[in-house]
């Protein structure tokens, strides 16, 4: 039987990272993945990632996937694709479907990195064609390049719902509403804000009452829920849609771990059964590791670090890496992982409502309830200062682990500091030159350049734009505020598309001066 030092199941962010890390230490490594392409969910992730340089922040998911794959291949990792791991048996043996045959392989160590699958919820009509997971919609549009539908309603305001909602807009779909039964937006405020400013209404404390249609979805009714999650009669609203996307969380895909007989337990109420793992991801079975979402749902950035931690641990366990080297490497990786575990959205804060930032600023309730910051509260935050001349407006108001803006500014206008979750502070004395690097660097599309008075009663606003078609210089369109309401006419004065901005275009428009601190989106067509 073919034997490897390490078998990795799943070629997603954690699996590839684990494989690359182990192979770099001399292990003979094979990765098996059921899909035709490696990368797991990374190639569906077309947005820029959060984090710091070590977390590959401000790179888009698919670029991280390409990089990881290249690294794994350079390290000599064998990647088996279209390879369904049917079972994990005694003695760390796997049975894999390869084409028209099955094959048996054994690993001295095995890392399970099978990720997660989407949770679902039931409502009348939920089995109709047109109701699908948000991940399904993402696969359809970003991998298969086919629109999942024309008019879509998104259920779920966690990061998946928000990110996929935005990507639906980028694919040219209409997003009629973003709905969540919870009273607060679950995902990052910056993700919500970039959806809200395009005019998508948020319905918090709402759920789907029913999907309509006989053969396919033709409409949806939502209703407001009371404190017991019951729909309040008379609160129903109806939308014409052909697609309903469900983004109500993920569950770890633990089947192989269960088959192997690993111990599983519920770490927190309602979190589902997860493998009981050591600090380095080793399960109750010696030499069998779990890394990434399969060991607990987090972001791709943490999955990559968990993969590397398991990979270097396997190398240490099998005697390929010296103990001191393993310890040192683990320290680096763990520090990086801990940084991601800080902030308001940290795993430890799940289910809690955080009302103040670590610096003591009130978290915007508008942002939590409607998806956008109110005009009057914006200057409360340290990234926003109303000053003369061109200056960045950093609408980043929650403690999330992210700092590329700090490094992007050649004039050091922006400071996050040593703690990666600290809100960025704008220093008006540093002398902004309006280069726009910060706009492109911000994964949350939360930075704008504003000159509140350029004369003639006008203000100039530069926004990040990731939509097609790009406006033409001189084109007049509608200026939308943070809530997505049309507040006036805006004339485009500059469109900057720079390769290093990585598909984030900088669109500058002028608006009446009083709208300079309000206009945050430009829409084609008349201002009606």
């Amino acid at each position: 039987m073919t034997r490897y030092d390490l078998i990795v199941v799943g070629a997603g962010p954690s699996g590839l990272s684990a494989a690359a890390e182990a192979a770099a230490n001399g292990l003979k490594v094979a990765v098996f993945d059921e899909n035709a392409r490696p990368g797991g969910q990374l190639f569906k992730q077309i947005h820029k990632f959060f984090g710091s340089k070590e977390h590959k922040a401000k790179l888009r998911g698919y670029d991280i996937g390409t990089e990881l794959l290249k690294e794994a291949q350079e390290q000599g990792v064998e990647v088996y694709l279209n390879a369904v791991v049917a079972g994990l048996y005694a003695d760390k043996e796997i049975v894999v479907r390869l084409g028209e045959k099955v094959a048996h392989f054994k690993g001295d160590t095995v890392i399970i990195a099978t990720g997660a699958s989407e949770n679902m919820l039931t409502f009348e009509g939920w089995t109709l064609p047109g109701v699908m997971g948000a991940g399904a919609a993402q696969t359809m549009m970003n991998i298969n390049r086919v629109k999942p539908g024309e008019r879509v309603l998104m259920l779920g305001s966690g990061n998946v719902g928000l990110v996929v909602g935005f990507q639906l807009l980028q694919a040219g779909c209409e997003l009629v509403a973003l709905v969540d039964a919870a009273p607060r937006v679950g995902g990052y405020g910056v993700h919500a804000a970039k959806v809200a400013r395009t005019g998508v209404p948020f319905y918090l404390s709402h759920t789907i009452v029913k999907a309509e249609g006989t053969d396919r979805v033709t409409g949806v009714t939502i209703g407001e829920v009371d404190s017991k999650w019951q729909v309040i009669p008379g609160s129903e609203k109806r939308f014409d849609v052909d697609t309903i996307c469900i983004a109500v969380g993920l569950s770890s895909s633990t089947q192989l771990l269960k088959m192997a007989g690993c111990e599983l337990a519920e770490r927190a109420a309602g979190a589902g059964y997860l493998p009981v793992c050591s600090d380095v991801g080793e399960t109750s079975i010696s030499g069998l590791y779990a890394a990434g979402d399969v060991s607990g749902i987090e972001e791709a950035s943490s999955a990559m670090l968990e993969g590397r931690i398991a990979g270097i641990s396997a190398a240490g366990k099998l005697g390929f890496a010296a103990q001191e080297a393993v310890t040192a490497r683990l320290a680096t990786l763990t520090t990086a992982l801990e940084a991601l575990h800080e902030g308001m959205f940290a795993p430890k804060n799940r289910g809690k409502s955080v009302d103040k930032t670590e610096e003591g600023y009130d978290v915007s309730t508008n942002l939590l309830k409607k998806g956008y910051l109110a005009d009057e509260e914006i200057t409360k935050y340290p990234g926003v200062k109303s000053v003369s001349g061109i200056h960045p407006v950093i609408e980043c108001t929650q403690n999330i682990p992210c700092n590329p803006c700090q490094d992007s500014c050649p004039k050091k206008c922006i400071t996050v500091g040593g703690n990666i979750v600290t809100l960025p502070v704008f220093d008006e004395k540093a002398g902004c030159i309006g280069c726009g690097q910060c706009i492109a660097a911000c994964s949350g599309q939360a930075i704008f350049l504003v000159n509140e008075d350029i004369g003639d009663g006008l203000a100039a606003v530069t926004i990040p734009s990731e939509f097609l078609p790009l406006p033409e210089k001189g084109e007049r369109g509608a200026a939308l505020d943070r809530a997505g309401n049309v507040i006036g006419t805006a004339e485009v004065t500059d469109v900057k598309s720079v390769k290093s901005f990585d598909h984030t275009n900088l669109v500058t428009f002028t608006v009446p001066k009083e709208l300079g601190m309000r206009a945050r989106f430009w829409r084609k067509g008349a201002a009606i």
Partner: protein
Amino acid sequence: MRITEHPILGASEERRTVTFTHDGAAYTGFEGEPIAAALKAAGIVIHRYTKKYHSPRGVFCAIGRCTDCVMVVNGQPNVRTCVTPLAEGMTVDTQHGAGGEDRQ
């Protein structure tokens, strides 16, 4: 329904066009794309009717796990169309119930 220009992903790459049939009618799609994608692009969303209640089903998870999108492909029932690549000359048929009446 196809996304030809995308603000991030750019223009879609050139792919070989293949012909397939769906319930007897001829369609085209791209070689190697999931059958489900070709169907979606052609506006077909009903993949099967269930056994007990004869209710319509379509793409639900799109990653080969939920098995809701199965159809009769080249005579074989229960083929997951969201992960099965399209090939020239495929016959793709709406599945009724368990399908497979014609397996022999």
